């Protein structure tokens, strides 16, 4: 894939390469995917990025911010209180939702067993839990079907959906399910369903994945591996990396030499310098493999809440405007 394979994320960035310019001339590349899934290693800021992206997108259209674990971490960062799911009174155009594989399974079962008393009791029985666990990928498959519907809803009202997804390992497992189902069932209804979900995942207008990383070796490595799997193995149409927590260098190498007497301060300066260098190297490395990089600044603030998320949303928005 050429540099700039994921067109829209090119548009989030200052344009650098010729190829990217050519890509941007193509009108289909001018819009963000309707549904964007945010994943990454634990502790790399998935929820912050999801919250900031949803906040930025809510300025352009009705946006759903959803999670798959019912923790509502991203929405919590925006300062939302949750007595009931649904609208965010404080933010126009932003709706919070929570999906779980379990709830999707329940919906499915209730559709098949319309007698509520039986379907409810059944769902509560341990037996049933094990049976569904033994059917590989059923819950995950139903979850992806839900995401497909969510993207369609977003498309219909010209809005967006942002998913605060589980860590990259689990997210890749989830996204691999259609492939697994297709291998298991080479033909028939399920194969057809799996193909529909696969088409959705590979359609850059409907689906995209943002992988978050921090300037740390392990996080960068995990992000590279995740990106390679998403793009080359799962053939996801839109993938990009968000390099989160990138600080300004502040002190130069020669500054660090001058302060050799202040050992503790020098250590802090060097620590900052090391993360800057690592971020720069990671940026280059991602670009060399043709992956778009979105950089978000390190916020040196004592609090990390709604105002900081708004700052990050502003940074994302600005990248869009620059384009």
């Amino acid at each position: 894939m050429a540099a700039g394979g994921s067109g829209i994320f090119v548009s989030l960035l200052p344009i650098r390469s010729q190829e990217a310019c050519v890509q941007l001339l193509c009108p289909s590349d001018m819009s963000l995917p309707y549904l964007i899934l945010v994943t990454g290693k634990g502790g790399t800021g998935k929820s912050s990025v999801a919250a900031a992206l949803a906040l930025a997108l809510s300025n352009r259209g009705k946006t759903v911010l959803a999670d798959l674990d019912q923790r509502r971490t991203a929405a919590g960062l925006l300062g939302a209180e949750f007595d009931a799911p649904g609208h965010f009174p404080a933010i126009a155009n932003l709706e919070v939702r929570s999906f779980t594989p379990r709830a999707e399974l329940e919906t499915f079962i209730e559709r098949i067993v319309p007698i509520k008393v039986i379907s409810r009791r059944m769902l509560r029985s341990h037996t049933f839990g094990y049976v569904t666990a033994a059917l590989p990928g059923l819950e995950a498959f139903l979850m992806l079907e839900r995401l497909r519907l969510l993207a369609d809803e977003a498309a219909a009202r010209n809005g967006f959906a942002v998913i605060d997804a589980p860590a990259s390992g689990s997210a890749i497992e989830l996204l691999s399910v259609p492939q697994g189902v297709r291998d298991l069932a080479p033909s028939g209804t399920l194969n057809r369903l799996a193909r529909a979900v696969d088409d959705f995942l590979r359609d850059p207008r409907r689906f995209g994945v943002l992988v978050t990383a921090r300037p740390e070796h392990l996080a960068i490595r995990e992000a590279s591996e995740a990106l390679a799997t998403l793009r080359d193995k799962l053939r996801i149409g839109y993938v990009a990396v968000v390099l989160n927590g990138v600080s300004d260098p502040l002190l130069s190498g020669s500054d660090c030499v001058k302060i050799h007497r202040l050992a503790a301060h020098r250590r802090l300066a060097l620590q900052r310098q090391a993360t800057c260098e690592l971020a720069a190297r990671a940026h280059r490395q991602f670009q060399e493999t043709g992956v778009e990089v979105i950089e978000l600044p390190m916020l040196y603030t004592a609090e990390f809440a709604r105002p900081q998320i708004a700052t990050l949303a502003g940074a994302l928005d600005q990248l869009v405007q620059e384009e």
Partner: protein
Amino acid sequence: MSAALDLAARRLVICLGPGGVGKTTIGAALALEAALGGRTVDVMTIDPAPRLLDTLGLQIQPATPHDVPLTTLKPRGRGRLRALRLDPKRTFDRLIERYAPSSAARDAILGDRIYRGLSATLAGVAEYMAAEQLLDLRREGASDLIVLDTPPAHEAVDFLDAPRRMLELLSSRALALLGASREMARGPLGIFDFAARAVLAAFDRLTGLHLLSDVQAFVRSLEGMYAGFAERAAQVQALIREPATMMVLVATAEPQRIDQTREFVSSLNRLGLRPGALIINRVMPPLPGLQEIQHARLAAPLKRKLRRNLADFSALKAREGPWLERLHELTPEDVPMLMAEDLGREPDTLRDLVRIARSLRVAG
């Protein structure tokens, strides 16, 4: 200085915690410190960072215990550290090989498409396999302390509960439902089981997958192995309850860890267990003073930059405060909360691990 975490009477330390908090690092640091103190230690890691793998010499030999050379570190006793890496799939395969009633049954299971999917996806398989490998290590008896890192848990204490759930699955009516013999499954089938069977049949019809018949065949082939599984599961349950076993809960001072840690504590509680310690990983060490900058003979612009750098790091340090307080509040009263120093970078040498262990004041 007295030890904050004394492992002398322990034979097994299990590190639990949500993904991304550094369970592997903490486990390796505890194991190394105990080995330097003279004990014979096995550290079993599940999902180690590549650099930590290098440090522990595990890059080449993944699944067999591997000696970590301690000579560069001035051990205080005649200790020894072995590291090994868990491979759930391989352990499951070995288990099938061990307990399958015949070689034909073994080959049937190992080649089964459901087994291949199941051994990777069934909730608790990785956890159960960690427990299996743990029992193997114990039986081998080459070490007097085992430090175990657990898989990143989706559901609080998956690892500790996995053997019981696996056993429950094997003795459950689910198996009868799926076609195993009634002797194997306990209890009669109720109306809801028949409803479940109807759903599965509907699913099969809908999908044209004939998955149900495959699941049934697989379950039947597992039948002969029940006794072996049950015995192992009971052993693991007994082992985690021994007084010489310590559960260490690992967290970080970040907002999303509060709820996760609270869930871990309460699900341990539900199992009748309590952590021996809560370790907060990557806590920033105290920062240097502003006076040092004021008094230094440096150009004013450089001083300004240094002041800003200090202010930036101070803000991050201040960010930790409330979360540490919240973690402290949810720690049971008689459980010590210990803080592991943030090195400002990822630990990648044995020396780094020693530094982390020292910040915890561990005694082997």
